[in-house]
């Protein structure tokens, strides 16, 4: 009984053959790891973790609609998340307004998605997969779409990186310097919407945060360097997704518990490291602070 359960969670029979089948999924997963890892630190500094959740529920509704009407699920997913991202971006400039808008949108999106899925009479694995993720072998055209969107998000982030960082941590000063802070913020919401839509294809709508937030949150526990943070965050996210897919392969269970568990463990480890090292982070004061040094 116990070993049945174990084999269901971790099975490695015929592993080599399975691996070939999910090659596309692994490529897609690694790419999503890069996207999630890069965008995550901005999600954290812009305080948008809750927004990611809200966007993913509307994205789920869009994907469900696509499933019901026989359209492309990724396209439906993108439609839903774009709508949510723009609504949140335009209406919710201030954190408090934003949170209430998200709280209103999120249950609506989820409810709509459930309705659409209830009406859908096709394969039930498709339904469940949208919420909790799947390793259904990603076919080549699907992989192409994922790759294209991921590349768009990564390229977009690279272009706006510096002003986006400036506007994210220091909006008032950035605006005073003449940066188009509002436009940057809308552009970021579009990129976030795209990133959310593609992440849903692998980890599912409910668990997108484990890809877009947890790795960045873990990285920020151990470094304050603006260069090291995204690099670590990417490494953590890729490890979580690819590791999750590899572990999930033999068991026939959804992929997301594996991904979320790995990313959670990484977070715990980083927290412990960060706490042991103290608040100073990797790089501390050059000279221990003395009253004289401060008075200088």
């Amino acid at each position, binding site marked *: 009984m116990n070993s049945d359960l174990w084999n269901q969670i971790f099975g490695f029979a015929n592993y080599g053959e399975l691996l070939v089948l999910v090659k596309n999924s692994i490529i897609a997963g690694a790419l999503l790891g890069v996207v999630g890892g890069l965008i995550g*630190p901005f999600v*954290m*500094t812009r*305080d948008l973790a809750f927004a990611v959740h809200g966007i993913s529920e509307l994205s789920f509704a869009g994907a469900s609609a696509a499933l019901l009407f026989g359209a492309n699920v990724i396209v439906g997913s993108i439609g839903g998340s774009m709508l949510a991202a723009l609504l949140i971006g335009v209406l919710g400039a201030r954190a408090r307004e934003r949170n209430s808008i998200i709280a209103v949108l999120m249950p609506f999106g989820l409810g709509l998605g459930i309705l659409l899925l209830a009406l859908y009479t096709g394969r039930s694995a498709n339904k469940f997969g949208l919420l909790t993720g799947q390793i259904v072998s990603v076919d080549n055209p699907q992989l192409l779409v994922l790759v294209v969107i991921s590349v768009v998000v990564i390229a977009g982030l*690279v*272009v*706006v*990186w*510096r*002003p986006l*960082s*400036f506007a994210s*941590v*220091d909006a*008032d*000063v*950035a*605006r*005073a*310097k*003449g*940066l188009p802070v509002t436009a940057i913020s809308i552009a970021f919401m579009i990129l976030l919407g795209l990133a959310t839509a593609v992440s849903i294809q692998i980890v599912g709508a409910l668990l997108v945060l484990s890809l877009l937030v947890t790795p960045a949150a873990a*990285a*920020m*526990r151990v*470094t*304050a*360097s*603006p*260069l090291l*943070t995204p690099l670590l965050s990417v490494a953590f996210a890729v490890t979580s997704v690819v590791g999750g897919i590899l572990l999930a392969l033999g068991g026939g269970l959804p992929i997301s518990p594996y991904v979320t568990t790995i990313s959670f463990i990484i977070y715990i480890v980083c927290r412990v490291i960060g706490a042991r090292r103290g*608040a*100073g*982070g990797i*790089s*501390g*004061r*050059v*000279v221990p*602070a003395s*009253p004289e*040094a*401060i*008075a*200088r």
Partner: protein
Amino acid sequence: MTTPPVLSLRGATLAFGDRQLWHNLNLEVRPGEFLAVLGPNGTGKTSLLKTILGQQKLTSGTIEFLGEPVTRGSRRIGYIPQQKLLEQGTPLRARDLVAFGVNGHRWGLPISSRAERRQVDEVLASVGASEYANMPVATLSGGEQQRVRVGQSIAGGPSLLLCDEPLISLDLHHQRQVSELIDAKRKALNTAVVFVTHDVNPILGMVDRVLYLAGGRFRIGTPDEVLRSEVLSYMYDTPVEVIRSRGRIVVLGSPEGYGVHDHLEHHVEGAER
């Protein structure tokens, strides 16, 4: 021949609905001049800064920066906001905040050239922040953060420095240090300073002119001309007494107690580390 003004307002009026903050304000700020903007809350001190930054439209009149109508922000303007502590865990070191002042407007990845890095190092040294250059900004004390902000604001060699209550929530010791730093920088760079504050005392020795806003009225002049009992009594429309004692100015009887040093709670350096 006089140098052209950095900032000039002509017949500038700002009103929200039928509440007029200031009317027919004429003001020219010259390079290197230190202007303090004083007055109680709600008299349009911060709105004046927003107007200069192009975020607030005048009801009537004109405002020009370097001879051109103001735009939405400018790279020639340095800005020091109220000290607000950054969220713990923000991936930003003191040197990164200063670097934004040098190249934060440029697109692309945040990779600085060697020259830019040297410039950031020089700025950090000039504001006495080298020792915590690599520390996360969020872990610095209030006084340290404001030093870094002064560095950021002057890093681009601005023509105008806007300060919005930059000393608030600092203790007296750090108020003096940060204001002296701002004063030294404006002299070294010939930068005009518009300094909004509710308490003139920490900057009294540096101020060239005062713009005093109160009760829908304004008065411009040297501190000695403006900070007098008759002038303020007229502006507040109630008897007000200005007392000078040991180099400090205390205003008694004003509706909002302007000038009485009202943050006595001392921000203990290093306590939050």
